[in-house]
């Protein structure tokens, strides 16, 4: 198994496209998305019950080498600043296959 960083981004569902575009631009090896995430934060309740996705979040998970965390985080930060959301980085072991 190989040590990697596990980056978890929870952001407004309307920004999902943008986050993916950013990650692809940085040529991450891959990412996973959970589209329907609700929650609560500084910007109030995201109940996910409206017709547009204005009150819904999405979660993006990407595992990457420790080295590329910095550039990913720097690329995501402006989105978080503009639209809210959180980004968590943690350690993990990647099962090589």
């Amino acid at each position: 198994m190989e040590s990697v960083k596990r980056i978890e981004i929870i952001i407004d569902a309307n920004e999902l496209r943008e986050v993916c575009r950013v990650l692809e631009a940085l040529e991450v090896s891959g990412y996973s998305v959970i589209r329907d995430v609700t929650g609560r934060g500084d910007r109030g309740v995201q109940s996910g019950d409206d017709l547009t996705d204005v009150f819904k979040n999405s979660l993006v998970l990407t595992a990457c080498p420790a080295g590329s965390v910095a550039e990913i985080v720097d690329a995501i930060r402006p989105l978080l600043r503009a639209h809210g959301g959180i980004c968590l980085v943690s350690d993990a072991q990647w099962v090589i296959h």
Partner: protein
Amino acid sequence: MDAALLLANLANPPVLFFFLGMLAVWMRSDLEIPQPIPKALAIYLLFAIGFKGGVELHKSGFDTQVITVLGAALLAAAVVPVWIFFLLRRRLGVPNAAAIAATYGSVSAVTFIAATSLLTHLGVAFSGWMVAAMALMESPAIVIGVVLARRFGDGQGSSIEWSELLREAFFNGSVFVLMGSLVIGAITGESGEKSLAPFTSGIFKGVLCLFLLDMGLVSARRLAASREIGLYHVSFAVLAPLAHAALGIALSALLGLSAGDALLFTILCASASYIAVPAAMRFAIPQASPGVYVPMALALTFPFNVLIGLPIYLAIINRLWN
């Protein structure tokens, strides 16, 4: 007689189900219509109303009245956001003022549908091609709102490209389905109408009831959750539709519309968008707070129009037209 109208409106099943939805929230029932069912119902409604409108357009053709009405619709959609913006900018700041301008300059398809449902309920005739006016009024206010935010804003968020914005405004999902179904209806005409009638007309009112049940749930929840809404917002959300209704009625009179068409044109002016616009604002004016412009349109103006506004406007029209 006007009271009678009010009651007639409240006795219309879709309105009753909308009220039932609000009641469920107030009584803290755990009733919910889980996503994406409401999204699917919305697509169905846009599909059906667009298609039927297109068929009517096919029948009527683009005669001068149709064209003048569409022109007037565009005019209203262009004027309304501007005056709202300058009305609100001092009090609410440029971003929110621009977002609210776009919201109230655009239209609410569901309110429009509720109006047609009321007219059918009362047996008042109206022109199906009015849907085309609705389709035309969805997008312009979005663009105007963003332009105003740019022009008078602190230049933030100006990073976003125009192509993106125009796509959001003119090709967003709901506008696209409505426009597309309208065109398809206009292409296929009566033949298409006959084969789709059981789907687009037969079950329409029933689906509308379920959809409004959900709208009741959502708007009551929004109202309960909205912490950024003050008396100022509430009064605007009630007075704006009245003011715009007056504008709509005036234009309708000038255009010599029938009573039914006048109500539809009026509700287009008086309604505010909570489907097409918020998504666009969220991305084009991120500094504006969805916690302000969405509850205003969805939790205040929409219920006001559906429960009280529609019969009032119609009563006035009846008075003036006779």
